[in-house]
């Protein structure tokens, strides 16, 4: 009665939920939290990519959400559980306004404009002291404890990362749910159609601008939400980490996994790119070399990403289908 796919998904969720009980080291839990954040960011990249938009401003919206939530909770004294969704709303509104300006450009102009936007956002955060300048914001409040029935309350302290992990997991699964819902709806089909052939989609009545803007707003809001989580988890925000370089890293996660796999690809890509440098003991200064080499290898040998290999393996089995049919 339950489909195989459903069982796999439940299994995966259970494994993910039990992970911090197995992996006790808080540093590794931190890594997995970052994997989660990066994976969701990469998913937003693919969302926009499907409609023909290559966005260089993903980290910028990640930052907008982070700063918004930090400001709301610190300057306005909002409880964190309120500032998280509020920051998402703020990000959505900004995305709607800026998006209308950006998406109007069409494919190539969009890339350039989001690049400029990416720079501008970092500058805004760095220049104006209200955002803490280039030193950034420190000491951002952690989420207030939430009561769990029968167990007591779950406190969010920076020492044990476990509660943050579960919060990240919850948010990530929620985002995946939302994305999947959109992908399997007519909006998702429209996005796919626009990405495959924009002219044809237009002639079938699809408003390119509207659908692209929708994808942009959804993607940016999701990025913003993950940003607001990041602010309250990490506790410190430095403007430099929200620039186009970060966005390009996110691109690599997505491409490594395979851009044809909107959910699974980013998870795999982000998993590898976050964990492998750790195992290879690559220090922060040297990490760009690693990322750079991966990028070159991807472009040369693996443009469809790792999961793209599975497609290749699938295709091998099918017989050639170019027989000539005659009508009637």
């Amino acid at each position, binding site marked *: 009665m339950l489909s195989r796919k459903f069982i796999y998904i439940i299994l995966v969720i259970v494994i993910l939920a039990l992970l911090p009980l197995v992996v006790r080291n808080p540093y590794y839990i931190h890594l997995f939290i970052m994997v989660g954040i990066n994976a969701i960011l990469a998913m937003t990249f693919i969302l926009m990519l499907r409609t023909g938009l290559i966005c260089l401003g993903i980290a910028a919206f990640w930052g907008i959400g982070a700063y918004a939530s930090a400001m709301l909770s610190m300057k306005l004294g909002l409880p964190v559980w309120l500032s998280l969704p509020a920051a998402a709303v703020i990000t959505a509104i900004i995305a709607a306004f800026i998006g209308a300006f950006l998406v109007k450009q069409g*494919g190539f102009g969009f890339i*350039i*404009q989001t*690049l*400029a936007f990416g720079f501008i956002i970092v*500058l805004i955060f760095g*220049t*104006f002291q209200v955002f803490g300048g280039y030193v950034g914001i420190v000491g951002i409040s952690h989420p207030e404890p939430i009561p769990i029935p029968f167990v007591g309350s779950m406190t969010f302290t920076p020492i044990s990362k476990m509660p943050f992990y579960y919060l990240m997991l919850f948010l990530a699964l929620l985002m995946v749910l939302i994305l999947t819902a959109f992908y399997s709806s007519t909006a998702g089909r429209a996005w796919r159609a626009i990405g495959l052939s924009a002219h044809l989609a237009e002639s079938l009545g699809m408003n390119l601008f509207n659908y692209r803007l929708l994808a942009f707003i959804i993607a940016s809001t999701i990025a913003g939400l993950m940003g607001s989580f990041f602010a309250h988890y990490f506790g410190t925000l430095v403007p430099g980490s929200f620039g*186009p*370089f970060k966005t390009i890293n996110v691109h690599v996660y997505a491409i490594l996994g395979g851009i044809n796999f909107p959910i699974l690809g980013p998870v795999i890509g982000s998993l590898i790119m976050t964990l492998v440098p750790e195992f290879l003991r690559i220090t922060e200064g040297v990490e760009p070399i690693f990322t750079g080499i991966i990028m070159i290898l991807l472009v040369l040998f693996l443009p469809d990403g790792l999961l793209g290999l599975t497609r290749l393996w699938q295709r091998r089995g099918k017989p050639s289908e170019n027989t000539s049919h005659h009508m009637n």
Partner: protein
Amino acid sequence: MVNVGGIRISYEKVMLIGLTLGVIIGLHLLLQRTKIGRAMRAVSFNPDVAALQAVNANLVYLGTMAVGCALAGFAGGVMAPVFAVSPKMGGVTLLIILVVMLGGVGSMPGAILSGLILGQILSFGQYFLESGVAQIIFFAAIAIILYFKPGGLSGQAQQISLQ
């Protein structure tokens, strides 16, 4: 130091300006007057037709890449005595993409013009306004100009297919 109408410019900077002008002129001559330059322009317009004229597109790409990197190296070398040298200098690459876009892809006068104008905006901006604000205006100006003139200042926009 050289005194030009009341402004003191160091010898290094004069050399920088002079050498840069020389290189720009040289590049222009290369593209317009030599066979190699013609080949480059042909390939950029239509690689297939260029092939019909016995131009090896791949070699041209290679050569263009070489010239481009040489120019970048020249820029770095000539900037070294004047500006600081750091491993992160190359981070300016993304910025340069914007500058070139503003000038119009495929247009050398556009790139030069845009570089000059943007450099001025930045310098004067940083003098009169706070450094960060100047930079914000700088990028915002690029974004707005490109919005109204997607082809850049020179109006030229070479078709870049995103296939």
